[in-house]
């Protein structure tokens, strides 16, 4: 009881502070200095029509690298804590058979979902979308496969392969930026190209595709490990 009262008192304090923030908030009329620089210089410097993409991939590219690293660390820790069942155990389990309709539908849908995910992250510099969204869509496709075939426990090798290759290629492109352009993760190692076409914005489509593959593989790996976790009795 006392504990609950203390908790409510602390929350009331936090709520009061947040109310203060809300009451004193006034909307800006113009963009802040940094954002105005990105908005004015960004399209000419980087050639990307989607400014969020240019901020995520190039101006704040190092943050994105750190974020992908965090995802990798989380996937590793989850793999460390949850032991997967072996293939024999998977076969010994007898889940309910999935229906014919689901099998056919999944075989038809999963390729379309993967293609859509690839479309989302390749067009990330022109339209809304990008590596994180496309990666999440690809992970949803993998999840659909997992749900339709509960017995299989394959595919882990492929997921690990995609994860490591895309991670290495991402860092490699970043280092190429030091030698061929102005700094780490600079996208101008390729020509900036004509504004608003698919082959523009230098290396941004390549970097975002790699991020997309990486994020998709990490999220799939997390889902895979949570699905196949074995109880140690």
């Amino acid at each position, binding site marked *: 009881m006392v504990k*609950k009262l203390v*908790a*409510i008192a*602390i*929350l009331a304090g*936090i*709520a009061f502070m*947040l*109310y203060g*923030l*809300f009451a004193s*908030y006034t*909307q*800006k*009329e*113009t*963009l*802040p200095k*940094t*954002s*105005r620089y*990105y*908005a*004015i210089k960004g*399209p*000419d410097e980087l050639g990307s*029509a*989607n*400014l*969020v993409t240019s*901020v*995520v991939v190039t101006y*704040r590219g190092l*943050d*994105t690298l750190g*974020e992908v690293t*965090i*995802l990798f660390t*989380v*996937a590793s*820790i*989850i793999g460390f*804590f*949850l032991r997967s069942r072996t293939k024999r155990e998977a076969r010994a389990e007898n889940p309910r058979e999935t229906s014919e309709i689901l099998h056919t539908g999944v075989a038809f849908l999963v390729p379309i979902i993967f293609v859509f995910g690839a479309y989302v992250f390749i067009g990330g510099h022109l*339209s*809304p979308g*990008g590596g*994180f969204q496309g990666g*999440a869509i690809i992970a949803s496709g993998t999840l659909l496969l997992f749900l339709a075939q509960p017995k299989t426990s394959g595919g882990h090798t492929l997921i690990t392969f995609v994860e490591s290759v895309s991670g290495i290629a991402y860092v490699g492109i970043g280092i190429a930026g030091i030698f061929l352009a102005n700094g780490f993760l600079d996208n101008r190692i390729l020509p900036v190209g004509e*504004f*608003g076409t698919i082959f523009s914005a230098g290396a941004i489509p390549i970097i975002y595709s790699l991020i997309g593959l990486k*994020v998709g593989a*990490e*999220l799939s790996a*997390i889902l895979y490990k*949570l699905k196949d*976790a074995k*109880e*140690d009795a």
Partner: protein
Amino acid sequence: MEYVALATGLILVILGLYGIVAQRNIFRIIIGFSIFDTGLHVVLVSIAYLKNRTAPILDEAVSKGEAASKIVDPVPQALVLTAIVIGVAITALMLTFALKMYEKRKTLDIEKFEDLKW
């Protein structure tokens, strides 16, 4: 409009915090954390919004020259983009720990885990 969203985000933050400190079930604490997360994202996005402006994507409607006076702030949006992915990773981590704790004690009540109490 953006004020309504801002207020909702702040209330969601408080609701999520209340869920974290007041619930006893670890699973419900994680759900409270995820609501807290969503509230923070709503707050950041509504701070990025400027009146009568469009999304930070240049096309036929917004040309290169007038971008600075027609688009909303892209930087907080980029922050939220990464924050969502980090948030789901952290949620997965917490769920894993909850699963391990459940396997150890066969309960999810936070009061039953007294190892570090004095």
